[in-house]
């Protein structure tokens, strides 16, 4: 079905190209020229993931700085083409540890083989047919862009970073590999509040991610909070400390026999990375981890506008909000911004071409508060409308804390062949997926 697979960098260079060996599938059309050109012309974020050009269908996904592109002469269902590409990406990640420009270059042979077999035999169980060995590439520390690619490389004092981005699929070379398993609870927050901090819409999407480097095929038990409530949507939620979730789905390898009584997931994990459980929580049981208030006022006898932003970190004092960034769009009439911030390790920058004021705080301990006073300087003759300031968007990352209250009571690996205990890592991460503060 798929005629061609490409891996393209965001600088529009083709890293890898695999053409189907079927003549009747292949097309003469130079898609390797078309996609990069389109990328340069239209720019990222504007090309829909499925488009047709000269009767050739293009499908792509973007992961980090790479684009994975598939083309076909037939109108393949976009969902299936995109799921295929996503699976391919995950396979590459399992094989190479990290998928970046460097690692793709270093692993040309392996990836080529992978694409080749994936095109023919679909994506199931390719491991036995892959003959080349992965080359492990050190990840560059600057890769802080996409939570999905970064998750296992996330900076965390308790975890040795080097283990988190190695290949998950075992090949003959790495006998010395450690026997370990990572279980991460990752929650992504979507919220909209008004300028006074009143929440109008709030939702948390959570996943329990497992990255499995265990030897053999042991069974793993993950125990969640005993008092966890799984509500049918629309039911009234109880207050208090108990964790409750609205909706959850599980990976095929999860056995739920003990889930109803004791909230234990029995997992027979495949090697590599997968999400054992995805869930969502919304509504009254949740508290915002970071509260942001925005006040805008006109300055008498001036066309400038005063903006005060206050942030309070509402997580327990034992946790920190890291990489807290508040972005405030301002109208094009603003030519510069004068600022005053209250705390250390904070910075306010004005990106004049994007018309964006960016206030970043490296680290903010739970319970603390901070304030930024900004004066938007207006050089034009118009007045600035308050309507054009904002809405602000907030980004942060909190480890060791979940909004839903979901926790892992214990993580046990049932291994009969080996006597030693594998390393087990449990991490909790909360990030903002989309946190918007309306300013008027």
């Amino acid at each position, binding site marked *: 079905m798929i005629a061609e697979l490409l891996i393209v960098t965001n600088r529009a260079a*083709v*890293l*890898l190209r695999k*053409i189907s060996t*079927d*003549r*009747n599938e292949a097309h003469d059309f130079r898609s390797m020229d078309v996609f990069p050109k389109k990328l340069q012309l239209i720019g990222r*974020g*504007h090309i*829909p*993931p*499925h488009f047709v050009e000269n009767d050739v269908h293009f499908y792509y*996904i*973007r992961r980090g700085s790479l684009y994975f592109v598939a083309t076909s002469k037939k109108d393949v*269902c*976009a*969902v*299936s083409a*995109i*799921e*295929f590409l*996503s699976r391919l990406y995950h396979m590459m990640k399992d094989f190479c540890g990290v998928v970046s420009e460097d690692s793709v270059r270093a692993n*040309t*042979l392996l990836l*080529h*083989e992978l694409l*080749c077999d994936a095109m*023919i*035999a*679909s*994506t*199931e*169980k390719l491991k036995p047919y892959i*003959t080349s060995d992965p080359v492990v590439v050190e990840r560059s520390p600057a890769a802080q862009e996409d*939570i*999905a690619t970064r998750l296992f490389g996330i900076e965390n004092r308790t975890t040795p970073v080097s283990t988190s981005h190695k290949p998950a699929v075992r090949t003959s070379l790495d006998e010395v590999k450690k026997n370990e398993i990572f279980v991460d609870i990752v929650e*992504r927050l*979507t919220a*909209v509040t008004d300028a006074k901090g009143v929440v*109008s*819409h709030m*939702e948390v*999407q959570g996943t329990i991610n497992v990255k499995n480097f265990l030897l053999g095929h042991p069974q793993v038990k993950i125990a969640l909070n005993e008092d966890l409530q799984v509500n049918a*949507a629309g039911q009234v939620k109880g207050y208090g400390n108990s964790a409750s979730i609205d*909706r959850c*789905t599980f*990976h095929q390898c999860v056995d739920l026999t003990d889930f109803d009584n004791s909230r234990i997931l029995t997992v027979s994990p495949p090697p590599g990375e997968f999400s054992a459980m995805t869930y969502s929580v919304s509504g009254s049981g949740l508290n915002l981890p970071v509260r942001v208030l925005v006040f805008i006022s006109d300055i008498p006898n001036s066309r400038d506008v005063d903006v005060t932003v206050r942030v309070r970190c509402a997580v327990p004092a034992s946790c920190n909000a890291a990489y807290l960034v508040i972005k405030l769009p301002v*109208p094009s*009439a603003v030519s510069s911004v004068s600022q005053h911030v209250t705390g250390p390790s904070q910075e306010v920058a004005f990106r004049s071409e*994007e018309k964006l004021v960016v206030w970043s705080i490296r680290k903010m301990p739970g319970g603390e508060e901070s304030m930024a006073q900004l004066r938007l300087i207006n050089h034009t003759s*118009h*007045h*600035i*409308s308050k*309507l*054009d300031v904002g*809405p602000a968007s907030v980004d942060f990352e909190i480890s060791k804390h979940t909004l839903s209250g979901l926790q892992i009571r214990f993580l046990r690996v049932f291994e009969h062949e080996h006597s030693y205990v594998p390393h087990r890592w449990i991490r909790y991460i909360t990030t903002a997926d*989309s*946190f*918007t503060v309306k300013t008027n």
Partner: protein
Amino acid sequence: MAKVVRRNVALLAKQLHDPEIMGDYFQQRGLLAKVLSFASQGEDMSLVLPSMVKLLAHPDLCVKKVAGEVLTQHSAGNAEMVLLAINTLVQDAADSNPMVRGLALRTLSALQQESVTEHVERAVSAGLSDSSAYVRRAAVLACVRLCCTSPSSVQDSGFIDRLYGMIRDTDPVVVVNCLSALEEILSEEGGIVINKNMSHYLLSKLHSYPTWVQIQVLDILKKYHPGNEDELFDILNVVDGCLENNSPTVVTTAIQLFMGLLENLPHLQTEIFKRAKPTVISHLGSGNAELSCALIDIVSRASGEAVSQFSDSCQSFFCRNKDPYYLKSKKIALLPRLVTEDNGDAILEELSLYCVDHSSPVVSLQAIRAVGLLQQKQESLADACKEKLNGFYHSTSPHILSNILQVLQDLDIQDDSFWESFTTRVCSNHHMVSDSSGKSALLYLLGKHGHNSMDAYMVLEEYADDFSEQKDQGVKIQLLTAACKMFVKHPAECQNLLGGLFETAMDDTDLEVRSRSQFLYSLLASGIGVARSVLFSDGGGGDRFSVI
């Protein structure tokens, strides 16, 4: 640049011949990696082909694989190389290692040249009854390629019957390969024929198949039409479980299958979306933007009633900050279709966030358009929407103002007090609208709703003064029409304005503008009553160009 690459390829070819490197697997693989990266730049690889033929006989499986790949991809016009390779490949096809056998079959069939047909036929025939599933998979696919080069050989050697027989193979991938191979080979006769037995067999096995096989089986089953209603419901019951599958593709393929089966039972179609909803919603929250976009496409294509199944979870269709623009547009376009009494306010609030989006004028236009749709669709929201639109007009961003004007000109709002306050505001900051589609929308609205306002007259006068410098055809035509409408209402005040306008417009370089001004002139000349009835006979909000 091309020369440098050429020299590099030549150097590579030389290195590949080096006997020292030949012996070292590791270096050999490194060189092949380079060959592949040149190949992916689309370079001419004919120089390295002789080495590839030699490497086909290499003991390392990885080297063999890549050599075969490069050979098949670049030997199209090179019959000599193909002949050289055949011997090795035929030998490999009888190797004791199934991986080698499968690989040889793959390479052999991919060469796709008349001269090798005979060998391929023999190898495929042996491969179809191989004990290893890996070889059978390759052999089935080889049939398809064989069919491309010589259709007669597939027909004559009874491969088609064998493929039909192999649908009951124990290996699911072989099954699926057979299905798609038959579909391809028989494409001229309408593809594979699915009879009752076959469909029941596939359905009975469906849930034991791995995900990707399930998808293809579901896809093929779309071709089967059950004989009676009982059978139909049996199929529905089996496939029903797929609607709750973890894989979005299984769900969408199952939806498509159901839609085909239930063509005559529309009331059940809505039910399908109800069942598939939880999976769709959970994938929308997964953070995979491209997947969400494709899923929203599926939802948008459904009928109105089916879409309204998603109304109570409209929050899942709200935009996120980090969503790419294409996804935001898709979500915004869908939201007005989800509106009900209960969620109307929430949807309006969400849309208004994006109406004033500074980063992308397209997203803002779409959001404003969606608010316009809401205004017409939901009676209870009409006033709130109008208020929002009026409020947005306080903005100082030119693109937002222009977007609002463009949306309003297509809306049919019967509310004089709204227009009165709106025209006042438009007149006070009309100079901020800078693009031509915004300007023509502004003039259209002033012509239609501004005839009681002195300010509107001033604006028209200002535009008339700049008429000769104006470049856009649409703006000129709208100005002429607006001035005529104004004239019909207030002949005395507008006489000078309109006279001057006609004078310049008749000599305009643009044919369209000239003919429009002539038409309007003769319309006015035929009497004020006729002109009034034509100018103000608005057949419907939208068609402003056909009727004026």
